């Protein structure tokens, strides 16, 4: 087995062995999905129309934005990255492989949601499955890259919680998961454009469900992809082997550049 295959296999198993990662990869998103399926569909029957993409995006957010940063910080603090560096594990592998394995976990969770939402909760299935998978992959990549970037720049585990929640909580409130963006007050809409979930939901609804959207869904995919590439590039650039996380090539605030495409999107559409 090649080094990449060994590393990938190990990281994938870690997503199941580590209780925190198991929780964020599977238990939390699937538990929330079951709750929403049972409760939200009764309160708001219109939720069934967006339930599958909304719960898929929620699963992606839980695994990536909430789940990815802490293991990176803990590994750095424990000196694991030093061991890796000495043994020739490149920074690219240290960041890319957890992102890839997390995308795999997310795909499994999303597949469970897609397979059960219609028979269990009468969730509406996508009309274009290819577009659905494509948007899911782009969203998972972007959120994975943002999660890796949060892990790289955070001084400690408490900081990861702060940064992660700065994205996660607004995403839940105004990111189009619980209610359509069209129902948001106009003053709030520009802020929702700053969130990856808003663009993910617009892309899902516009491309996979053929619905009318508030933003241009193709532009949303481009915004997501650009931010993902920027975030991953910055994560590699700012990555630090040092357990004390003191010496690095740039200031942590450079990470905000990854959000530039979302800022630009306010003026685009």
């Amino acid at each position: 087995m090649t080094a990449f295959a060994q590393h990938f296999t190990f990281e994938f198993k870690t997503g199941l062995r580590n209780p925190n990662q198991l929780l964020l990869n599977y238990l939390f998103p699937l538990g929330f999905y079951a709750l929403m399926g049972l409760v939200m569909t009764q309160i708001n029957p219109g939720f069934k129309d967006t339930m599958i993409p909304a719960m898929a995006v929620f699963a992606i957010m839980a695994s990536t934005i909430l789940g990815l940063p802490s293991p990176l910080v803990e590994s750095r603090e424990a000196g694991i990255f030093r061991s890796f560096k000495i043994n020739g594990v490149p920074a690219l592998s240290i960041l890319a492989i957890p992102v890839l394995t997390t995308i795999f976990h997310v795909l499994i969770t999303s597949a469970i949601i897609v397979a059960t939402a219609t028979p269990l909760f009468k969730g509406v299935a996508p009309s274009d499955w290819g577009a659905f998978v494509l948007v899911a992959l782009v969203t998972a990549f972007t959120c994975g890259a943002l999660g890796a970037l949060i892990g790289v720049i955070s001084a400690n585990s408490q900081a990861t919680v702060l940064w992660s929640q700065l994205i996660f909580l607004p995403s839940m409130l105004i990111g189009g998961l619980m209610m359509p963006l069209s129902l948001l007050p106009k003053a709030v809409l520009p802020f929702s454009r700053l969130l990856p979930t808003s663009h993910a939901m617009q892309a899902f609804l516009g491309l996979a469900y053929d619905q009318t959207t508030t933003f241009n869904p193709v532009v949303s995919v481009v915004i997501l992809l650009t931010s993902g590439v920027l975030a991953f590039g910055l994560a590699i650039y700012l990555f630090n082997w040092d357990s004390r996380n003191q010496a690095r090539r740039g200031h942590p605030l450079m990470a905000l550049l990854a959000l530039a495409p979302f800022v630009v999107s306010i003026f685009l559409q």
Partner: protein
Amino acid sequence: MNETILSVQDFRKVYGDFVAVDGINFQVQRGEIFGLLGPNGAGKTSTLECLEGIRRPDGGAMGIMNVAPDREPRKLRNLIGVQLQTSSLPANMRVDEAMRFFCAYHDVPPRYDLLERLGLKEKGHNQFRELSTGQQRRLALALAVAHKPPVVILDEPTAGLDVGSRTELHALMQELREGGASILLATHDMAEAEKMTDRVAILLHGKVVATGTPRELTATGSGFTKVSVRTDQSVLHHNNTAFPGVQQHLIKEDYAVYYSTDPGPTVTALLDYVAAQNDKLIDLRVERPSLEERFLEITNTGVAQ
């Protein structure tokens, strides 16, 4: 042992205003076990971290088989095997998985034989967090040498090990040396350094204050050689003769004990005296000052005489 494998020249490492290492020099030859000794904060870890390519030197030059650790990390990774002071692997990584993982990155087949040798075969399916401190250190050692590197850097390798594991580790070190590997050993255990190393350098406040073989170092300085003599009639117990080199003497159980700066003439004179008194020698012990005593002397005074 005349081929220099590892060299450190005028190496300097600074953290802000603090000079951790201030222009040190030493070389390690092929097949040599070289000890790096010093109290906490002497600069050992900074030196090792720069040799391992984790940190960049602020001055001077370092080379491992003509590879500069800070400039050629890819070349370095197969030249060195490193056991860090604190073993650090992912908590949920299994023992056999760790062996496969690191061997894959070194592009060599997994060395399960090393796990067996270091008593870890039964723990193959255990996760790293389930291992005792000693088992974690043995695993770290197995991983450090699995790719048969020409240079092995060991940072406090026997800390936390039981006697059996320590003996096995020492045997493995000897085997590596016989196989041509050079070992840079940083340790606080002076008995280990005295037993295992060919040469040592003692660091103090970022400078090398003494280098040489353990025998050379213990032969210098103000430490006295202890000469203990036991005879049939104990003629030395009631004797006040001033033997050459003797600085002080005392009676301890059946032995007359002499502390000498010049043990050769002291022993000769003692034997002559015992023979002249028609007494019979039962036991004679000559004990050099230990490396630990010499180390304490150097680190307390800050100078090597």
